[in-house]
C-alpha cells in the first residue's frame, strides 16, 4: 500500500502537479488518505469516497458490519485461491464494492474484463497488513481542505468508516450523496462531478500556493 502512496506522490512530483486537488475512490481513497499523511505537500485539497478502512469499525456499534465484511472478503479470497478469478471478481463486485446484480447491470464489458484480469492482484492487497489500516491521529495533522463522501445505496459498512475519517480531519466536509453507490462517478456522474468541482473551486482561495 505504501508503494502505491509513494508512486502517486512520485508521479505528481514528476509531472509538476503539486499542489493538486487529489480525489480517490474506494481503495484509491485509502491511498489518497495515506498520501495526505505521508506527502501532504502534494495536496491543494483532498476528496475521498468510501475508503475501505474497515478496522476503524472495531469497538464501535458497527462491529457486526465489520464481521460481515470480513466474511465476504474471506469468501472472495477463497475463490481467488481456487483460481476462480471470474467468480472472485463477481463476488467482490456484488458483495463488497457495489451490490447484488451490479456485475451484469452496472459494469461495462471493459470493466468486467479488467476486474477479472486484475483479480489475482487483490490477493496481494488483502495480504498486505497495511491495506485496510489508517492512523487517524496522524491524519488529524493534515491541514488542507477535505471532502469525504459516501452513498446512500452503498453497502452499510462504508458510511461509518467515512464518518470517522471525516471527524479526524480538521478541515473536512462530510457529504452523503443521495442515490450514489460505491462508485458515484458511475451511479450519479453528473452530481458527483459537480460536487467535486464545486468543492475544489470553493477551496481554491484558501489553499496554499
Amino acid at each position, binding site marked *: 500500500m505504501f508503494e502505491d502512496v509513494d508512486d502517486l506522490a512520485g508521479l*505528481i512530483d514528476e509531472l509538476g502537479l503539486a499542489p493538486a486537488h487529489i480525489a480517490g475512490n474506494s481503495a484509491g481513497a485509502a491511498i489518497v488518505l495515506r498520501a495526505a499523511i505521508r506527502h501532504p505537500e502534494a495536496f491543494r485539497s483532498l476528496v475521498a469516497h468510501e475508503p475501505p478502512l474497515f478496522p476503524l469499525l472495531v469497538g464501535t456499534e458497527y462491529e457486526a458490519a465489520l464481521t460481515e465484511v470480513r466474511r465476504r472478503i474471506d469468501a472472495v479470497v477463497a475463490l481467488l485461491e481456487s483460481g476462480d478469478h471470474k467468480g472472485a471478481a463477481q463476488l467482490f463486485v456484488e458483495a463488497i464494492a457495489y451490490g447484488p446484480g451490479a456485475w451484469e447491470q452496472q459494469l461495462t464489458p*471493459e470493466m468486467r474484463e479488467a476486474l477479472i484480469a486484475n483479480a489475482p492482484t487483490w490477493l496481494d492487497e488483502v495480504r498486505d497488513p497495511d*491495506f485496510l489500516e489508517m492512523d487517524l491521529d496522524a491524519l488529524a495533522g493534515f491541514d488542507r481542505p477535505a471532502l469525504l463522501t459516501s452513498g446512500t445505496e452503498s453497502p452499510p459498512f462504508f458510511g461509518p468508516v467515512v464518518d470517522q475519517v471525516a471527524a479526524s480531519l480538521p478541515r473536512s466536509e462530510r457529504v452523503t450523496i443521495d442515490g450514489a453507490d460505491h462508485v458515484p462517478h458511475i451511479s450519479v*456522474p453528473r452530481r458527483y462531478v459537480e460536487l467535486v468541482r464545486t468543492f475544489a473551486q470553493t477551496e481554491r482561495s484558501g489553499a496554499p500556493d
Partner: protein
Amino acid sequence: MPAAHINGVELYYELTGSGEPLVLVHGCGVTATGIPWYPRSPNRFGSLPTTGAGTAPASDRPGRAACSRMLTTSPG
C-alpha cells in the same frame, strides 16, 4: 499513452486540460477504461481542468500490491 518511470516501475498517465490539476485515483481491480468519469469529466469540470495520472499493468511489478493500478488514466 505516456509513462513515467517512478520507484522502479512504469506508471502510465494522461494529462488533459490546463490550470489547477485534479488527480483522479480509482479503486481496486479496475482501470479507467470503461469508466465514464474520466473521458467526460474534463468538459463537466468546466473551468477546473482535470488531470489523470497513470496506471501500471500488474505484469510491470510482480509481487507488488495491485493498487499499483490505482492511478487513474484515460482509456488511451
